[in-house]
């Protein structure tokens, strides 16, 4: 008995300490970007302020607002329909709504441009109808525009919010909603007054992921000729050879995101919602009548068609037409690389997320909270900037070890970490930690602290409480986190390009060598495989989440 209490006593420090170590490892690359920002080649701001900065900021804000609003409407709306209504085709839509998630944003942008631009089939058809011969004869919305960019990005980003919101709705104890209904509130009022506020933390996690992704996207906005802050960043880095200045722009973007998220957290600082039991067992879905059922189905079908069916069909047509140039016997290797890397990174990222979120839960010290918050910053940095942040500490460690071995053993160890698979997994984990720690934290928040008290009073250590009590309760949140990180890793491009080992291709880098030259047709097959390999686990996992 004595030894037992001693052990559990020493473990009180285990979680905060582990969290600190992990947190510092995660922070290193972000600190490296701070470090870079201290040494700009020249002060870039006077030039930017006096020229393009106002326009860049303006474009960035409009883009974020547009994508934020439309993907929230799509994501929350779809999640609510699926989790609380019964209609024909609901089961299919439940997972089909996730499909657009596997389509990289630059791919959907490319496909729709091909379809809707002047030379595309849609406008050709319109010209034939109206007997027109030049672009001046009729009006057609320009796909390469702000509206186009907002539409494209919302179509592939809304699944973040859909997934998070749906999980939150399913985790809600149905008794709350039933109580509200029995008190005479209509389903709509109950939704806005009961279900939505409880799901808010999860929806915000999804929304902040969407906004960060929008903020640091370069491929899509560049293709659509929308100059955002990211354009200014790349310009400063590549054209003015001023990586310090570029790091400063990245930090300004980061501060912007942090302020936004903190403001939201502050606004619900007094709001706490717990539940004692998991899930939707016994939940009564509202049975929709025939007409409403058709409308619900159609509403879900729109994002699925636009975000997945159309782009996937076009990719298939390209892949068939260009099969001879797109097929390479190395595809099996590319698939293996992408898949194994993404699975590993997703599991590592989940583990780190659990450590940080759980340490914050049991420790509640300022340090643990700060660790959890700052470790999510990697998502707000553009991938290429984060890659440079990863290289700096890794290469420094390698060279340090090498120096020691040279001095003491007369041996050179060369580079061990840089340019290895480890560097890629490290980068992915940092980049996507916000996804896993956010999902885990928002799920943990809903587990009442009574659970901890009961478990501890039954003699469980903190670690046992986590493994035997919390993780089983929040398994939906955990699966959601793994799934999102997995798909994100499959699509990850800028950091992979810079950090990868020699002769190492993922499906995304393979697609990029053509897509970077606007030759997507040549790599449509690989793009299709990204979508396929990314989507099968998503469907399987999402069914597991629902059946639990």
């Amino acid at each position, binding site marked *: 008995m004595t030894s037992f209490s001693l052990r559990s006593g020493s473990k009180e420090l285990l979680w905060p300490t582990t969290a600190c170590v992990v947190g510092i490892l995660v922070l290193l690359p972000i600190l490296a970007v701070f470090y870079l920002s201290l040494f700009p080649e020249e002060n870039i701001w006077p*030039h*930017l302020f006096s*020229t*393009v900065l106002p*326009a860049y900021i303006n474009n960035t804000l409009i883009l974020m607002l547009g994508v934020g609003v439309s993907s929230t409407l799509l994501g929350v709306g779809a999640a609510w329909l699926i989790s609380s209504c019964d209609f024909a085709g609901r089961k299919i839509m439940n997972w089909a709504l996730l499909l657009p998630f596997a389509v990289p944003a630059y791919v959907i942008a490319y496909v729709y441009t091909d379809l809707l631009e*002047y*030379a595309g089939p849609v406008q050709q058809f319109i010209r034939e109808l109206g007997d027109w011969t*030049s*672009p001046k004869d009729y009006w057609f919305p320009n796909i*390469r525009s702000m509206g186009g960019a907002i539409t494209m990005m919302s179509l592939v980003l809304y699944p973040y919010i859909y997934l998070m919101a749906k999980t939150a709705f399913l985790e809600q104890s149905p008794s709350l909603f039933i109580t509200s209904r029995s008190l005479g509130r209509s389903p709509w009022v109950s939704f806005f007054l009961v279900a939505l506020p409880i799901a808010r933390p999860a929806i915000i996690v999804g929304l902040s992921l969407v906004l960060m992704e929008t903020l640091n996207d370069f491929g899509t906005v560049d*293709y*659509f*000729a929308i*100059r955002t802050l990211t*354009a200014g960043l*790349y*310009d400063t*880095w*590549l*054209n*003015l*050879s001023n*990586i310090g200045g570029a790091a400063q722009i990245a930090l300004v973007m980061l501060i912007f995101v942090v302020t936004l998220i903190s403001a939201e957290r502050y606004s619900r600082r007094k709001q706490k919602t717990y539940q004692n039991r998991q899930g939707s067992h016994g939940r009564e879905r509202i049975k929709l009548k025939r007409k409403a059922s058709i409308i619900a189905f159609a509403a879900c079908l729109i994002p699925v068609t636009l975000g997945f069916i159309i782009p996937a069909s076009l990719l298939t047509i390209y892949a068939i037409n260009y099969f001879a140039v797109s097929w390479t016997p190395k595809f099996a290797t590319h698939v293996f690389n992408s898949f194994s890397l993404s699975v590993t990174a997703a599991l590592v990222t989940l583990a780190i997320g659990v450590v940080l979120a759980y340490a914050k839960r049991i420790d509640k010290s300022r340090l643990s909270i700060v660790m959890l918050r700052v470790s999510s910053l990697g998502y707000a940095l553009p991938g*290429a900037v984060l*890659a*440079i942040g990863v*290289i*700096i500490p890794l*290469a*420094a460690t*390698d*060279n340090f*070890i*090498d120096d020691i*071995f040279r001095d003491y053993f007369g*041996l*050179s*160890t*060369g*580079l*061990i970490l*840089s*340019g290895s698979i480890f560097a890629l997994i490290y980068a992915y984990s940092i980049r996507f930690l916000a996804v896993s720690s956010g999902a885990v934290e928002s799920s943990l928040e809903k587990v009442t602290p009574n659970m901890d008290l009961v478990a501890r009073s039954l003699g469980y250590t903190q670690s046992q409480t986590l493994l035997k009590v919390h993780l089983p309760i929040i398994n939906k949140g955990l699966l959601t986190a793994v799934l999102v990180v997995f798909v994100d890793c499959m699509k990850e491009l*800028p950091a992979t*390009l*810079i*950090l*990868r*080992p*020699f*002769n*190492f291709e993922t499906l995304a*880098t393979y697609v990029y*060598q*053509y897509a*970077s*030259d*606007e030759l997507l*047709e040549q790599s449509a097959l690989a793009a299709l495989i990204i979508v396929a390999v990314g989507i099968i686990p998503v469907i399987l996992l999402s069914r597991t989440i629902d059946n639990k």
Partner: protein
Amino acid sequence: MISAKMKSLGALALLSAPLFVSAAEEVNVYSLRQPFLMQPLFDAFTKETNINVNVVFAKSGLAERLKREGKNSPADLVLTTDLGNLSEIQESGVTQGIKTDTLTTNIPSQYRDPNGEWYALTTRVRAIYASKERVPEGAITTYEDLAKPEWKGKICTRSGKHPYNVALIASMIAHHGEEKTESWLVALKSNLAQKPQGNDRAQVKAIKEGVCDLSLGNSYYYGNMLTDPEQSEWAAAVRITFPNQNDRGAHVNISGVALTKSSPNKANAIKLMEFLTDDMAQRMYSEQNYEYPVKPGVPASALVSSWGKFKADPLPLTEVEKHRAAAVKLVDKVNFDG
């Protein structure tokens, strides 16, 4: 105890693993050029020499990676797509000068660094593409002409920030000074049919569609398009024009190679450099990507030659390079992309 020993042994084995990997002959390349362009050349090199070529391709960030990896960097060579990124790598101090008889004979002095810190491998012209249908031959002959009011709403181009356009603008600054270049750029912007967007090929497509009549684009894209089943009709709609043939000559940029300071396989790296500057590789560049060989006496491919001879601006590219930052800022100042 034993397990602790085993662990440290294991760790040591892991650390020293790179030392004992059998040294198959190899050379490591950081490439800013796309793999599908370079692979046939590397394959030919491996076939001839039995030296394997390992590649990492990325369009940005490799210079920074090289710098941070420092003396232990595995990279031997860096391949780039224009002089801008070549000189950026040189300036960050991670290249070394190398001169061999083969290299200095193959590459004329204006196409290499005086100390051998970089060598050009191919050249390409920043050409003007003109609609065959709507622009009579000889109606436009210089870059300066693009600013004439008669072309209002008739010109298409990619972003002014793209390295190819930046280099052209920098060359304008080198010849005319910043002030005159600014007014040229303002006038050019006011002639644009649409906001700068897409790549060089997309502009030619826009001419075919009737969106505009003139565009700026690298010469090799003409070859790429002519030989692509879908794009050949875009190319068929335009005529390639080499600008400024009656005065200073057309603006030419290079793709090139540099040897890293840390190069662990230096002998093999030099072999690859020499190979890329020699007849076979130079011909392959022209046959497969429609660029101009830099080695004197190596003819361009039949298709490339069919576009006619041209006079290149003799101003050294290193002079152009000095105005790169000014050019980038000018693009912002006149809000060219806005």
